[in-house]
């Protein structure tokens, strides 16, 4: 179901004279939320910027096909997640590394990232998150940082709520275990 802002965006988009206003509203409303979702997946700011641009371009090009029965935010979040994962796959190909080993590459990116302002504990915490399998990592970030409901996460990731709860539980356990071993 669309909320008021989403309804406004769609109606502005349907009128050729007001499409630019629809675009401005779309970007202003979702830019930051989508950026942080992407950034937590790809770590590097430049990669996040690329994925964000791709997300909005794809969304704008396909907005006329958008099914108004679902939430625009859920739809955009799904595109953003896919774009972020796509960037990681391309990175793995470019660097000639297995996609399963991408966490080591991301840990190195974190160490050299000029836009990471966390202390040593924060760095270890992020490293622990990067060690998680892809799905657990996405679920953990959505729940922990965005405080998203399982219902909404289920719509975005097309998974059952029970599976998401289990993924989050496992993720927390693994992170705590990693931190316990790393920090003295």
């Amino acid at each position: 179901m669309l909320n008021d802002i989403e309804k406004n965006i769609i109606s502005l988009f349907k009128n050729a004279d007001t499409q630019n206003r629809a675009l401005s509203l779309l970007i202003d409303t979702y830019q930051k939320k989508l950026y942080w979702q992407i950034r937590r997946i790809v770590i590097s700011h430049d990669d996040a910027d690329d994925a964000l641009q791709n997300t909005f371009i794809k969304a704008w090009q396909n907005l006329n096909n958008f099914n108004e029965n679902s939430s625009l935010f859920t739809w955009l979040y799904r595109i953003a997640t896919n774009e972020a994962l796509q960037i990681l796959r391309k990175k793995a190909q470019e660097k000639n590394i297995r996609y399963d080993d991408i966490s080591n590459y991301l840990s190195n990116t974190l160490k050299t990232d000029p836009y990471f302002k966390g202390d040593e504990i924060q760095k270890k915490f992020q490293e622990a998150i990067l060690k998680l399998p892809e799905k657990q990592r996405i679920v953990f970030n959505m729940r922990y940082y965005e405080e998203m409901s399982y219902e909404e996460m289920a719509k975005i990731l097309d998974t059952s709520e029970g599976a998401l709860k289990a993924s989050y539980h496992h993720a927390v356990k693994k992170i705590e275990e990693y931190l316990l071993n790393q920090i003295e």
Partner: protein
Amino acid sequence: MKQNIDIYNSEMKNNPFSVPEDYFETSALKLKEKILSNSKNFDTPEDYFETNKLKLFETITSTESHSLSIPENYFETNKSHLIHSITNTSSNKNTKTRIILFAKYVSAAAIIVGIIWSIQLFKQDINHQPILQNDCKTIACLTKQDILSNENVLDEEIIEDNISDELIDSHFQNINSSQSTPDSNSSQKLNETF
């Protein structure tokens, strides 16, 4: 010593990532520009389709007239070349046909000769020489004593084959005619035959 870290601590929940200054402000403008220009990316130059039609037509006609050209006098020289190739091929073909035909006749003749020769051999084999009395190449010259002493090595059929039917008949006739006075001569003859 290991410490316990509470990941739900508010400090831990703080976002450790940052963005370049005014990123979101400039990014929004950049995004709008990019998306709007992106939709115009596939515009064509003014009168593109009109001028392109002419260009395409020229390219296609020039390709047709030049790229499929043939050497000078190609058809004239090629005619004789073709005739030569065809006749060569047909004469070669005739020679081959003749050889195959000759081989067929030769093998047929050989088969016929073989059959005739085989028949001849077979005939020679079945033409028995008549066994003459006192012919010592056969058992005809054996005495009764010889036959009796070699009974175990003589085939019954061979013995029967070598008994003269005429002599046996005459022998039995003699017996019948002279029941009272046996003909010692004929029995002697029969004995001699054996």
